[in-house]
């Protein structure tokens, strides 16, 4: 009985613990989804660092604040006004869609972040790469270097051996020749009939065949070389990952902070170009986010490049009209030739294609590279397979009816003329 009681107590405790744990997990999720654009736990980003916020304010106040901070500021809440002014009067987004329970779980998460999370961000390293990754890449480089050196040494040794053996053979031959001159002279004479050699057969007896074979050989070799050369050097740039003027990481922005692709590339659902964001778009966040914690209170040198481009004075936190604005010259990675017309809106909005389908998992790329070949065959393949969303777009009303009449459930892009030349070439 006593045992039972103790067991049930433990069970209850465990249950409670697991509940608490669930809270924290949900909180982490919500925190990452809603807060990370402006907040970090241990570092001031756009908004202040959130560690210790639970001690500073009571829970009810915090819930109210998170749900609508501006209302509190306007109502004249002393603490709210103070907090507002402390943070350069940056307006915090209202989260009225969050339930009280959800806010509580976020607060729970802030209070007790999981150990791993705390460990990986000891310096509040939003901007830096994490330690393990640095190690991994260093290891990579090391590995590569040692392999190269080891192979080089081995090659050198082998070369020396070959050289020594050759010398030995020469010496032995010399000795043999001097000891048995007649034998050696006999051996030196050609023992085979010249007419049976392949060279004779090919080039003297059948010169045409020989020439053709040689030309064919050249063609094959040069062709293979040329094909590769052509692919890599003339247009096809799969894997192209040029250095950019600003060391911008999609992994950080799109991966870690989960900023929507369309936030920056806002033309992608509107028109032909996805558009590279203007520097003013960067400034929406980087007006506040300086990653200074990483650089001893200095602005990150990469972010400083944006400031330089737009003429922003990071000391005064204001645009300096005396500074000349300089456009940022990004290096274009995805180059479609002018003869092919590609429209982002057609694919992103009308076709509902994920960005990643063509661009790869950009959210994992520290340096963006061209994942797809962008060759016509690649386009065509997708057009053969991709289904047209006939159900949800009135444009396809007639097609939808036709399909129904035929008893088909879908049409691919190729079924509606997606393979025709003039769809892309005009």
């Amino acid at each position, binding site marked *: 009985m006593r045992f039972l009681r103790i067991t049930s107590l433990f069970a209850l405790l465990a249950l409670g613990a697991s509940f608490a744990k669930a809270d924290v997990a949900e909180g982490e999720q919500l925190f990452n989804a809603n807060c990370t654009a402006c907040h970090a736990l241990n570092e001031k980003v756009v908004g202040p660092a959130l560690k210790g916020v639970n001690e500073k304010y009571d829970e009810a106040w915090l819930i109210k604040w998170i749900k609508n901070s501006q209302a509190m500021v306007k109502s004249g809440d002393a603490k709210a006004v103070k907090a507002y002014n402390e943070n350069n009067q940056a307006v915090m987004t209202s989260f009225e869609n969050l339930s009280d329970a959800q806010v509580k779980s976020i607060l729970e998460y802030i209070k007790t972040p999981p150990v791993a999370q705390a460990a990986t961000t000891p310096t509040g390293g939003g901007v830096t790469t994490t330690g393990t990754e640095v190690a991994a890449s260093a290891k990579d480089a090391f590995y590569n270097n040692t392999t190269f050196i080891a192979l080089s040494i081995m090659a050198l040794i082998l070369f020396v051996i070959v050289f020594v053996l050759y010398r030995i053979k020469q010496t032995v031959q010399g000795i043999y020749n001097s000891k048995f001159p007649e034998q050696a002279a006999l051996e030196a004479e050609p023992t085979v009939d010249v007419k049976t050699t392949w060279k004779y057969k090919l080039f003297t007896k059948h010169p045409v065949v020989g020439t053709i074979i040689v030309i064919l050989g050249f063609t094959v070799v040069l062709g293979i070389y040329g094909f590769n050369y052509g692919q890599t050097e003339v247009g096809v740039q799969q894997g192209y990952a040029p250095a950019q003027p600003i060391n911008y990481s999609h992994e950080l922005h799109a991966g870690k902070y989960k900023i929507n692709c369309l936030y920056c590339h806002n033309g992608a659902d509107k*028109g*032909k170009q996805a558009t590279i964001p203007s520097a003013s778009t960067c400034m929406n966040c980087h007006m506040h986010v300086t990653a200074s914690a990483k650089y001893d209170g200095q602005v990150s040198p990469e972010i400083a490049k944006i400031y330089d481009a737009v003429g922003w004075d990071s000391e005064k936190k204001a645009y300096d009209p005396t500074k000349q604005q300089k456009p940022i010259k990004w290096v274009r990675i995805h180059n479609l030739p002018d003869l092919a017309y590609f429209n982002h809106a*057609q694919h992103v909005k009308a076709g509902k294609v994920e960005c990643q389908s063509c661009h790869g998992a950009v959210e994992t790329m520290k340096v963006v590279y061209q994942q797809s070949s962008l060759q016509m065959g690649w386009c065509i393949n997708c057009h053969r397979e991709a289904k047209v969303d006939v159900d949800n777009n009135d*444009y396809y009303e007639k097609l939808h009816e036709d399909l129904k009449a035929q008893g088909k459930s879908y049409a691919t892009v190729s079924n509606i003329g997606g393979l025709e030349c003039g769809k892309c*070439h005009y």
Partner: protein
Amino acid sequence: MENKNKYWKGLEELNNDPKFLQNKRNEFAEGIPLEDVLTDKDGEMTSNRRDFLKYFGFGISAVALAACNKAPVKNVIPYIVKPENITPGIPNWYASTNPTTGVSVLVKTREGRPVKIEGNPESPLFKGGVNAVDHASVLELYDNERLQGPKAEGNQVDWNTLDGKITKGLAAAKGIRIVSGAVNSPSTKKAIAEFTAKYPQTKHIVYEPVSYNAIIEANGQSFGKAVIPGYQFDKAKTIVSFGADFLGTWISPVEFTKQWVKNRKVGTTNNGAKTMSRHYQFESNLSLTGSNADVRVPLKPSATSVALISLYNKVAALAGAAKLSSPGDVEFAVNMIENSAKELWANRGASIVVCGTNNVADQLIVNAINSVLGNIGTTVDLDNYSNQTGGNDAAFETFVSELNSGAADAVIFFNSNPAYNYYAADKLIAGIKKATVSISTNSVADETTALCKFHAPDNHFLESWGDVETRVGFIGLMQPTISPVFNTRQASESFLRWSGNFTDYYTFVKNNWTAALGGEAGWNKALHDGFTTSMKTPVAYKTSVLPQDAVNAAYQTYTANKDKVELSLYTKVGLGDGRYANNPWLQEMPDPISKVCWDNYAAIGKVTADKLNLKDGDVITIKTKTGVIEKIPVLVQPGQARDTISIALGYGRTAGGRVGANVGKNAYTAVSFNGKTYSYTAADVTVEKTGDGYELPQTQTHHTIEGRDIIREASLGEFVKDPKAGNHKHAHIITLWDEHDSKGHRWAMAVDLNSCTGCGSCVVSCNAENNVPVVGRQEILNSREMHWMRIDRYYSFKDAHGNKVTREAGLAGNMLKGKDESLITDETDFENVRVAFQPLMCQHCGHAPCETVCPVLATVHSSEGLNHMAYNRCVGTRYCANNCPYKVRRFNWFKYRENDEFDFYMNNDLGRMVINPDVTVRSRGVMEKCSFCIQRIQAGKLQAKLENRKVKDGDVKTACQQSCPADAIIFGDVNDKNSEIAKLFNNERSYVLLEEYNVQPSVSYMTKIRNVEEELAGGHTEHSTTAPGHTGHEEAKHDTAAHANAEHAH
């Protein structure tokens, strides 16, 4: 054989000209340019096989080397601060107004640069129409020869320095003269008024090289309103024009075409209408308007006054009004004048008489006729008058003498170029040199600017703010669509600066309008719309002024010049008075009638040419009493009045840009001043043959289609009886091919031959939209023009007895003489020509002959009924062009971009700014052709998908359709049963070209209906014995010019 009109491409075809026959036999109109590659400059074929091998070897190694280029690093440079409403890749449209023509336009900009001009469909005057000149104006913005900044005495200075020097000079001047064309901007007028207030010694001289002074003067005398009236051709059932080319060049051609065509559409195109206006044209040169008239009477310039007097007398007789006592009539035209008088009177109040001469007495008679007919206040609107043009000829004459006498010592040429277009240029140039202050605001270093001490270059209108009062009560607004490309300043702002007003011009214009438009919101709305209108209901005016004193002189001029050769000067649709000469698009646009580009010529009728012993390409010198036009080539022009020579003004520029310089001959030297106004005709000229020859670049005979039945027409009477009149003949069709399955869209086009005036607006629109290159004079001579659409012009002739000249009749007659001989008989009447226009672009055949012969499948059929052309697949065999029955495919003989041999605009960075980024710029060695503006189709479909809806009729408009001032082209999806195209594609008038081939074109044409009494369709319809009801005229025998002319000829 049925009694059907036969159409001819030109005299070359009718004449079986050897060159024409040779062209006909050639597989391609264009030659193979091997010689260009292999010959030396002198044109001799000096190359041999070894040279060929050298070139060949070099070619291969060059290709190999070129292939070694690594793909270059491309940068992408985003905005620093993105403008709110610009998204790269999405065009922005702005409403504006072209100040030179007054036309309301929409400007398409891409990433902040204007690339295309379209009409503003909401504009009540122009209703979306634009002409070639408006289309081409965007290219002038990117002219790299524009003045790049202010200059003082030959040195580049900044604006402040210039202003300082100018104001100092002006303050010291005794007499300041501003010389400009008609100023139609209220704000500019105000700025000039401020200038005049500051410098009271200023006079503003309105000088138009092609002057409308006589109309203004006559209206002043007749009605006390010295203005150019607004005309309402849409309200006219009978139109009589004496040499006024109102569809082509006269005052406001876009507006007039929109109006005129309203009463020309019949049947399905106009809610089943069965009536048409009737249009009489009396003129000496075959103009665009004349070629569209129902009845055209060739008339010498010296006979115009007498013809007008007889028309007045005949109308007055019907009305019982006072007559002019005239000694006689123009004998040969008297019947036509009689007919037109009857019809005018029958439609009094709904008729119109216009006259294109710059002679006050003529215009007074026109006013009297319109007044007697009660047209003033209905079709002639003196209240909402036009500001588009003007002229004060006497004032300019005074100015020239003042300049030479020193009474005027400071002159500002405000976008005016009299050193080129004034007939006594030497006198003017001497005067300008004497002036202490001479300023030019012209934007290029033209003839006048070169003489001026100070250059204050004006902005292009696409860089400017402004207002344009096209007609009183109709204000078009201008807004900049790009910041100034060069360091230029709007001329109106310059006037403000010089008068000490430092307001920027935007604020100045805005302040002028904000109150009148009801505040900021009203201003913004007007700017958004591009115009604001407050036109009044016109009032009727009467006049009793009759120029009796001019009658005898007119009759004497007529009789004295009966057998003498006369000269008449006219302007072309493309180049106008010469201000557009530096525009390669307009230079390359073929003249609507002669199809000559890059040149002007002396147009002479066949009979006169024979009399003077002249033939095509002879070079002549023409001497008038006051001037000489030297060394101009002859073009034998059907329809040209007997004993007249017509020459286009606007050519022979010597400065102002590399494109226009030394193209054609300057004919302004033959203009004269008659004491009141400038005269653009000269009686009793002498013609001297120089003995030289010259080949005119003419496009018409390049692509012959062997005289097949491609123009179908009927008279209105036949059409009323049977809407299918003229369109009964349909081929028995067999096919080898399977039908295409087109379930989605099926794009098609209908062309109403009845509406098309042949003005060429669509051709230039197509050039701009589809990056069609300009090839230049020599390449046109080589038959290598690149235009994706052409407007074929066909002539039909009659002999002196009124019988049609047909090949059948000709062949029968020629059997005795042998084949290939001329069909021209002594009796062929070349003046009495009937013209038909037919726009021809790729017909997007269902069973396209080009597709079956392409060895690399570069041209293939689409599921939407289009004939696709993949340039990068094309290897240039040209089989497709050979197999095309319509000859609409064009081959890129050269790389026309980045090639200094084609020094027009595609070889410089600025010029290339005009290129449409949605359309590939084709390279050498590939075939191209009309794509039905597939980029617009794709854009229209995408827009529908993004908005989650079906494509609406009218979502997709081709460039040619959108700009057509006559709405002759209709495009759409025939599978959409409610679309306009579905109704027109298969209506009773529709036919496809060369139906017997069963290539199933996607373009259908609608029969041309002419409002004449004779039978045109023949065959299937019964002879009409009664005239169509609405006009109530009679005597069919009098109704054709043929008969009238026969009398003249004998």
